[in-house]
């Protein structure tokens, strides 16, 4: 079992590629891996309860740890988070890197 950190910086309202990245997270978990999806920059926009939040909730229910960068949330005035999403500091990224987890940026 491998451990993955997938960093999503894009806004799903702007880029349909985001959905494919969520699919990657889901597929990796289904393959028996541990996956953290770290939302950053405009990638945090679906963390606000909205039409696009259901996909994040579904990932969380499937076993993906879904985190949203606290700085990006604060910049965008997002205080209330969608179900299944937790705020986290950027230190999380460094901890995953230092632990040798496979880390991808989108």
């Amino acid at each position, binding site marked *: 079992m491998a451990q993955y950190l997938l960093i999503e*910086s*894009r806004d799903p309202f702007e880029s349909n590629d985001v959905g494919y990245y969520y699919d990657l997270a889901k597929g990796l978990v289904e393959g028996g891996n541990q996956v953290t999806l770290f939302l*950053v*920059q*405009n990638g945090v926009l679906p963390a606000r309860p909205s039409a696009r939040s259901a996909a994040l909730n579904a990932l969380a229910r499937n076993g993906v740890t879904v985190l949203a*960068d606290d*700085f*990006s949330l604060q910049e965008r005035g997002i205080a209330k988070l969608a179900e299944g999403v937790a705020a986290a500091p*950027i*230190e999380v*990224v*460094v901890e995953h*890197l*230092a632990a*040798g*987890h496979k*880390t991808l*940026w989108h």
Partner: protein
Amino acid sequence: MSRKTLTIALMDPPYESENLTTAFRILEVAARRGYHINVFAYEGAAGLAFVRQTQHPNPVHGKDVAEENHPTTKDQVAALLAAAEQSGGKVDWVNCGMCVDERGVNEFVPGTRRGSPADFHAFAEASDNVLVIPTK
């Protein structure tokens, strides 16, 4: 505790992308932890450490240079090097040689150097982990 070595590849040019804000936040955390950090500044990112960047006023807001205090990426690079040194770590910041030549930005912040993609390969081989932050 062993000292970690991380490599980060950057590709975005200065003053255009939020990617760099996030990248410098990640780098700053690693520097504070005393990690050894390798940065390969490729394509537009080769301008990050260009030493002739200068601050500017903001006449629209009626601010002079000092009041505007506009951050430059060369100062962010220098601050990163200083933070790493203070924590007992080090930064090997490589500016892609062909990229700086193309852009005319081949005067670097002291402590950074000219290199090539071969350096990135060597970094990857010698690191505990690698993060590539591509352009959008």
